[in-house]
Every structure is written in C-alpha cells, then in structure tokens.
C-alpha cells in the first residue's frame, strides 16, 4: 500500500518535473524564434501599411488597419523590379550550372588521375581560398573596364564566378570516394575520360553536386559587393543591387523600402521552405568535406 502510494507520488513528481522542463524549453525555443522571425514579420506588415497607419506608435501597432498594395505598386512603377528578378535569375542559374560543371571537370583529375603537378595545383588552388575577394576586386574592376569591356553588363557578374575552390574541393572529396573499379570498368568498355566523367562519375556523386549547386545558388542570389561595383543602369541590376538603389530612391518612405525588402527575400524563403532539408544539409554538409 505504502509502496504504491510512493510509486504514484514519484511518478507524479517526475511528470511535474518534465512538464516544467518542457514549458521552460519551449519558452526558450519560442523566444529565440521571436528574435529570429520578428523583424521579418514587422517588415511584412509595414509593407502593407497605408498612409494612415503609423510606422511606429505607442503602443506599437503591428497589423495595418488600412492594408494596401499601394506600396508595392508604387515601387514597381518607379523601378524595373521585373528586370531585377530576371537578371538575378539569369545570373544565379547561369553561374550554378557553369560553375558546377567547371568545378566538377577540375575535380576529376585532382581526385582520380596521376599527373605531374597534381599536388602543386591542388594546394595552390586551396591557398587562394584565403585571398579576400575585396583584394581581387580592384584589378578585376580595371580588367572589366579596360580589357573585357563588360562594365555594366550581366556578363561581368557571371565570369568571375565560373568556378570556386570550395566547390572543386568538395567535388574532389566526392570523386575520391567512388571506387576505382567503376572507372576501370568504364575504361575496359572503351569509354573515353569525358564519357566516364559524365555518365559514370556525375550520377554517383549527385548528392554532392546538389550541395555545391545550393551553396553556389544562395551565395550568388545574395551576392552584392562585386555586382554593386559593376551594375549601374537600373535595367541591368540584380535584386540586391536594385534593392539598394530602391532604398536610395525611397529614402523617407519606410513602407516602400519594406515592400522592396519583402520582394527581395520572399523568393529565397519560398525556395528554402520547399527544399528545407536539402538547404540545411547542403549548406552545413559542406563542413564535413
């Protein structure tokens, strides 16, 4: 009898303890979520505020009383937002495809062939990782203006990113883990190296290709420094450069700027929600290398 009672009491105590623990845990989780997400929510609501909804008030008014699309139409009518989108899509996708191909081409011999200078080439490539991109931007700017003559053209923000040492490194690791027998079998069948690379190796390392593609895509979609140096005509701007131009044009119009921010972020967030697992694994999976 006594035992039963103490058993029930013990259970009750451990239940309570777990309950309190869980409430604490969830409140920590929620407050961090509020800190991460609240700025986005605030911007979203601000972008729908009408002229009579104050941006800031006491107490703060979050949800617009007088919701309107006017901020969006005002921004669309003053700046070629459609061009910004198309340019960003063209640049990001162009770079993702070509960069992944070029990096995968370079990674194959570095992983699977013996040739003179292999180690030297590999380690020199790796060493360039620590060169700050801002350093190379000075001569690259001069090249763009004086040699390539592609200043203010989309090509100028594609060319410098057609390969990346991190991508070469990741794909080299992936190719290394492919068994040599597979490649030898291809050689016995008379396939040339390009064919082996394309139809044997690439399908096997598809997860790594996805990782590389996602890292490159996020990086390029959000790239600002170099595009801001190159692209000056409104019609040639990418979203990030255009957003800064928008901020300059709508200096005292918080609602308009908020609408611009929402338009810049939303495609990436939709993409992220749709491919959440691939995104997180891709961006952090690169670490295990």
């Amino acid at each position, binding site marked *: 009898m006594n035992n039963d009672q103490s058993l029930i009491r013990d259970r009750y105590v451990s239940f309570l303890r777990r309950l309190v623990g869980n409430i604490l845990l969830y409140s920590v989780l929620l407050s961090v979520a509020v800190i991460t997400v609240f700025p986005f929510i605030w911007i979203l609501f601000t972008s729908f505020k009408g002229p009579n909804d104050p941006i800031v008030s006491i107490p703060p008014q979050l949800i617009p009383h007088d919701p309107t699309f006017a901020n969006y139409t005002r921004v669309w009518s003053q700046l070629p937002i459609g061009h910004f989108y198309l340019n960003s899509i063209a640049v990001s996708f162009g770079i993702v495809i070509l960069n992944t191909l070029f990096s995968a081409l370079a990674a194959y011999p570095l992983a699977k062939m013996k040739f003179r200078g292999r180690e030297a080439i590999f380690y020199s490539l790796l060493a360039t990782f620590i060169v700050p991109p*801002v350093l190379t931007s000075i*001569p*690259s700017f001069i090249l763009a203006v004086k040699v390539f003559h592609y200043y203010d053209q989309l090509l100028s923000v594609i*060319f410098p990113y057609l390969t990346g040492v991190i991508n070469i490194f990741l794909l080299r690791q992936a190719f290394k883990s492919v068994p040599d027998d597979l490649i030898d079998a291809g050689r016995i069948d008379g396939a040339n190296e390009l064919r082996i690379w394309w139809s044997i190796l690439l399908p096997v390392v598809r997860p790594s290709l996805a990782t590389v593609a996602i890292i490159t895509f996020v990086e390029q979609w959000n790239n600002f420094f170099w595009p801001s140096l190159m692209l000056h005509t409104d019609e040639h701007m990418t979203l990030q450069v255009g957003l800064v131009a928008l*901020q300059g044009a709508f200096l005292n119009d918080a609602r308009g700027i908020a609408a611009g921010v929402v338009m810049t972020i939303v495609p990436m967030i939709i993409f*992220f929600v749709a491919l*959440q697992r691939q995104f*997180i694994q891709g961006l952090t999976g690169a670490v295990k290398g």
Partner: protein
Amino acid sequence: MNKKTSLTPYLFLMPALIVIAVFVLYPIGAVVYYSFTQYNIVTPPVWVGLRNYQQLLHDTVFWQALKHSFIYLLVTPILICLSILLAIVVNRKIPGISAFRALYFVPVVSGSIAVGIAWRLMWDRNGLINGLLLSANMIKEPVQWLAEPAYTLPIAMALTVWLGLGYYMMIFLAGLQNIPEELYDAALIDGCNSWQKHWYVSVPGLRPQIAFVAVISSLAALQVFNEIFTLTGGLGGILNSGVTMVFYLWRKAFRLNQAGMASAIAMILLAITLIFSILNMRLLERGTEQE
C-alpha cells in the same frame, strides 16, 4: 594509368584554371604592383615606391578602421558561445523541433543586404526598436541609434551574429549528434549535473567544429562590408564610426578613385588574413588531433 591520357588531366582542369588565373592569380600580382603606385584608374599608374604605405601609417582613419576590424572579431567568440548553447537546446527529439530549427535558419538564406536594410528601418528614429523601448518605458525620448557613433559597430556586430547564428547552430548540432551517448552516461555516473555534462563532454567533443567556426567566422568578420554598408547607408557612420578595413578599402578604391592606396590597404588586409589563417590552422590541427 596509360600514357595516352597524359594531356587529359590538364584539359579537364583548364576551364577552372583559366577562371582562377584571370580573376584570382593575376589580381594578386596586380595589387602588389598597384600598391606601389599612384593610380586613379583613368590615367596610367605612376610608381611612387612605399609612399602609399607611409601615408597609411599617418592616416588616422586607417588606424581607426584597423581597430574597428579587430573589435569586429569579437563576433567570433560570441557566435561560438551562442550557437553551441542553441545547438544544445535544439538537440532533442520533441514535437515541433525541426520547425524551430528551420525558423532559426531563415536569416541565413535571406541575404545580408535585404536583412541589413530591414535592420536599418528597425533601428531608425521612427523604427520598431524605439517603439518597443518607448512603450516599455525604458527610454523617454526616441534614440538616434544609427547616428550615435558608439552604437554603430555594436549594432552591425549584432546583425552579423543574428545572420549567422542559425548556420553555426546547425554545424554544432551535427557535431553534437556525432558524440557517442555513452560519454554522457559516463558523465552522469561520475556525478555530473546536466550543465556539467555539457561542459565536460559536449564542448570537448565539439572541438573540430569550434575550430572550423572560428576560422570561417573570423575570416568573415575581417571582411565585413554588407552590414556596415546597409546600416550606414554607404557612408561608414558618423565620424567613421563604422569604417572597417574593407569598407575603407572600398571607399578609397571605388568612391575616391585611389586604386594605389586601396591596393596598399588590400596588401595589409592580406597580411593580417594570412597571420590569422596560420593561427587558426594551428587551432584546427590541435582540434583534430584531440578527436
């Protein structure tokens, strides 16, 4: 390996090597040369020897920028501590946890320009922060956060932390999930409480990840630009309060057309980056030895 393939590896490497030669290797050489010249990009560079470097030594804004860049490195320990704590919190199987993890990751993909501009609105005189603080009676008057030199760097650093937290959390989470459960059991048997067990098991177990995050986030901190650019509207803050090395380099090269001077700053930045990377490599080696 048969002899027929002797040229093949180089053909495979060629596209990538051309890109790197043109956009990385050539620029390094060119920057070394430009740093000894006076060069406004329009007329040909004029050799001036060490003059750019000498002028930098006497340039108070440059020293300020250098100081700010070193202060900015504080984001590295802050990020490491906060993201380990957060990783420990989210490392459990409870309902809804993957939704929380995903939410924390949203800033990582949103891009620092859009988020920076959103933050600028938030910290504006008529922004969210003043609204909240006024409502809570914590301040009496709206504060001009971004016009106050003392606040420029801390707000920018907070933005960097806010942007990176979810990413580094995921790295540490992956690390935590590789630590064998038995180590925690042993710690509990040894009488550790739940905080001690993280201090004695999780933190040492995360050493490789800590080293990696230290390298990546300190390189990023030395090269911070977007946060400063958006928060100060491209001006660098009142009294240069937000000017870092990279921001100063950008201003010299692309606002003032002093490519020679900017190249000298780039060389100093490269030297600092090299020293840092070597120090970090040491840390990384020690980190992996321990594993």
